[in-house]
């Protein structure tokens, strides 16, 4: 189980990686770094945690090719950099680390993607969180609106009480990148469920139509593939307040993936799925059925869409009957539809007809 580590524990965990490299050299072997295979072929359902986690497949990154050797050297630089931050009590964004690596000579990163991936690698191998490493993303979290109240520690270190309906403007409450207990405390709420929404347009439509008040829910704008903090706060609200989470997305293969990362855990972050995923989340729509049932304006599936759907058919997270049916149906239809295609029937159709009908199926309306 992933948990927070003290600076000393973090340092020890990182030294294990460094020790693996060092010991191999001493033995006259190429240095290595062992880490789980990070593909869909190596994720499995953890019954105890109720989410998908990396399996037992290991890959060994060894210094027999230039690329891998450079990765190892970079990892060492990152470890050293983190240790320095732990000592100095500082933190840095992943992007800052990428720029700092400019000074690492041979160990410098080629792209920011590389540095992000390496930070994840280190999390996986050490079982620490990037928060333990004092690394933070610059990705911005979600927006929230609804009658829920929380406490956030501001820059001056003072706790601020915020109600996400009364104390915010139209853009809602902005979820910070750190939503852990030291930063955010969930206080109270007067809602029945949380609805996560893919697009900003739909989020704003529901607010304008007063959907959150009428249906007593908290609205959360995901901004596409949700950031770690967005998934984390959803999980916390779901667990700490015992609230159902429904997810309202476009009806295409990419939305299916967004849902999987919310409910089951993302492949890239399967090492901390139990920390980020909300297993009780429900996919509300747009489903492949909806495209037919509501006769929604649609687009043809692109070649990439079809590839993605076919990949999902063999993804263990979509192995259950309902998903297989949905994916196959979408492939058969050869169509996809956006959330906002519901506007075909008028601006109020989504709040007056579609969502009430869908929520009724779940017993939430």
């Amino acid at each position, binding site marked *: 189980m992933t948990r927070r580590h003290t600076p000393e524990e973090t340092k020890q965990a990182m*030294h294990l990686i*460094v*020790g693996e*490299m*060092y010991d*191999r*050299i*001493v*033995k*006259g*072997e*190429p*240095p290595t770094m062992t880490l789980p295979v990070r593909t869909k072929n190596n994720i499995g359902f953890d019954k105890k945690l109720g989410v998908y986690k990396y399996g037992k497949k290991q890959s060994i990154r060894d*210094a*027999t*090719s*230039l690329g891998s*050797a*450079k990765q*190892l*050297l970079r990892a*060492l*630089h990152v*470890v*050293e950099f983190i*240790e320095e931050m732990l000592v100095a009590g500082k933190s840095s964004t992943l992007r800052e680390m990428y720029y700092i690596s400019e000074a690492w*000579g*041979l*160990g410098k990163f080629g792209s920011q993607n590389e540095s992000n991936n390496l930070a994840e690698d280190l999390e996986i191998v050490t079982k620490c969180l990037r928060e333990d490493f004092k690394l933070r993303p610059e990705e911005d979290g979600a927006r929230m609106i609804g009658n829920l109240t929380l406490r956030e520690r501001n820059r001056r270190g003072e706790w601020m009480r915020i109600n996400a309906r009364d104390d915010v403007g139209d853009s809602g409450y902005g979820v910070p990148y750190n939503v852990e207990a030291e930063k955010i405390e969930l206080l109270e709420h007067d809602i029945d469920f949380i609805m996560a929404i893919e697009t900003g347009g739909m989020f704003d439509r529901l607010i304008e139509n007063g959907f959150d008040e009428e249906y007593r829910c908290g609205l959360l704008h995901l901004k596409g593939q949700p950031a770690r903090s967005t998934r984390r706060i959803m999980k916390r609200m779901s667990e700490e307040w015992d609230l159902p989470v429904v997810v309202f997305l476009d009806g295409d293969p990419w939305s299916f993936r967004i849902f999987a990362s919310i409910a089951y855990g993302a492949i890239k972050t399967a090492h901390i799925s139990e920390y980020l995923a909300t297993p009780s989340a429900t996919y509300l729509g747009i489903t492949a059925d909806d495209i037919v049932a509501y006769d929604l304006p649609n687009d043809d599936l692109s070649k990439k869409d079809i590839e993605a759907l076919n990949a999902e058919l063999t993804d263990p997270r979509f192995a259950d009957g309902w998903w297989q049916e949905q994916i196959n149906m979408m492939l058969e239809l050869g169509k996809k539809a956006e959330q906002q295609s519901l506007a075909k029937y008028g601006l109020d159709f989504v709040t007056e007809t579609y969502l009430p009908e869908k929520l009724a199926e779940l017993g939430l309306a």
Partner: protein
Amino acid sequence: MTGIAQKLASNQKQVAISEFFEKNKHFLGFDSLARSLITAVKEAVDNALDACEEARILPTIRVVIEKIDVKKDIIKLIVEDNGPGIPQKSIEKVFGQLLFGSRFHAIRQSRGQQGIGITGVVMYCQLTTGRTTHVRSKISGEPTAAVVDIGLDTRKNKATKSNQGREIWYNEDGSAKEHGTEVTAQMKAKYQKGRQSVWQYLRMTSIVNPHAEITFTDPEGEVHHWPRVTERLPTKVEGIKPHPHGIELGQLQRMASESTDSRLTVFLRMNFSGVSARASKELCVAAEIDEKTKPKSMNADQIRALLEAFQGERHVKGKPVKLLNPPTNCLSPIEEMLIKKGLSKTIDSRFISTLTRAPAVTQGNPYQVEVGLIFGGNMAADKPVEVLRFANRVPLMYQQGGCLLTKAIESVDWRQYGLDQPGAKGVPKGPAAILVHLASTNVQFTSEAKEALADNGEVIEEARKAMLEMGRGLRKHLEKKKKMAKTKEKFELINDILPAIAEKSAHILGRPVPDLAGSITKIMSAVISETSTTWNKETKQTDVMITLFNYTSRVRAYTILATWPEKAGAEMINNETGGRKEATGVWAWKLPSLEPGERTVITYSLSGLERGDWTETDVFFRGSQDVIGASKMDEKFLEEIRRQERALSDPGDADSTPEEPAEPMGEPTVAPPTGQTTLFGGDV
């Protein structure tokens, strides 16, 4: 030349020059306004190059083209050379007379086989602009230059001269001109750019004449300069007598009628190449003519019979008369190294391979094929490669598709050598240029236009073989490049990255920096060779260093082979590792066993080369384990070199000599005698 000359001679009496010109302009090279200009430049530049070659002067040629009247397409052309100059009384002959001299009996490789000559240009100018051509020429030792305007009297079909005089010729820098000739002509013509242009003609000329310095000022005033890259003039070619296999009836008739020999055998021996004393007698027997017959007195039937004996249609003792091949010293190939220089000064590239095949004989005519391939650099990767065709150092610019040289290129499956060639058909695509040069005493063209070489199976095969070998060179280069990149990575890994990993991990853990030797062996797990070929400014030699590292955990043993430009006259010196010559241009060293972690170094220098002549040494190995940075010795490659060696030493017998199996690390081959011997053991 003879064909046109005869035609002109017979036509001249009946028709006006203008009419003749109009009728034959397509094969005279004046069929379009753009081509007329190229032809004019070509005639003038060919003359300049030939004159300089004859006088053993390194040519410096200046070409200027100006637009005089854009609307009427009137262009002024100036071509100036530093040749020996023309004596005043001969100027008229050179520029105004179509039948000046005959190359009839002297068969040799010359540029002048092609085209009508400079007189055609004078005619064309006269006919299109009514203007005369201004000639200025100075010979060494005379204080002044001769000047004269040459024209043609179209009514009398005769050269005219006017404004004859003498003047002091100053160079642009004010100094007095030593010797040379300058032609200034005005004609109706069009200046074009691109693949068929004066620029391209001069560029190509410069490639195959690396000893020439050419400057071209185009109508926009832009100056193009192709510098001289060698001080070596082309070999002076000897004229040879015709070979019986290459002669036609008319020619034989003429030779017989002009002969003053008293006996047929003497006539045969003295006037033909490849005819020994014994062969001359056998030819008489085969033709059923008394060997004492006076050649002049032979009748038509006898001449025909003799020709049949020449061609092997009449036998002696059931066999055709065996004739020797003609000597091949009448050819002047450009030679590999100079083609390389010519190409590299003109085209920017990463890789150049050139090849001169041994001379061969087809239908009694000696010929020699040379090829060059230039790859990489700024050339377009998605377009067909540039084809550069030459016959006797003269660029061929038209009718590419119908030319034997193009067909030879198309006959190769270039895909296996790293070039794109959809369906293995046509000219390959890729960032490359392919040069093909045919040197011959008798270049056969498809038509009088003399822009495409006629099909000839033997020549095609010879050109094809050359290209296959060159293609192998390209493939090897590309493979080597890949391997070198891989090796470079490995070295970066063990020299830079691994020590950094060791240091950093030791630092983080607060432990001592570990020894890397074991890890390095495991990571490399290979034998690696590194080769450097560098020009040594002080010694004026090319220094070569081949280093072999054994990064495996076992003892390894190899024979290392390296190429060096022996044919270009390079000599291997300071080679302390010893070894021995394996074939022409291939040296071999049998190395003592190499312990794990050990290295061995071979060093030597090459003398007799200039800077830039030799920049890349090919390294091969014999041994069971792969060597990164060297190629496994292809024994077929050695065989081909040996076959060429034999061909060079005895061209007549190249194909009939049984292939001897390559002997690895054999004793150095003894140079075969260079003199010509007959198949029957006698002298030529």
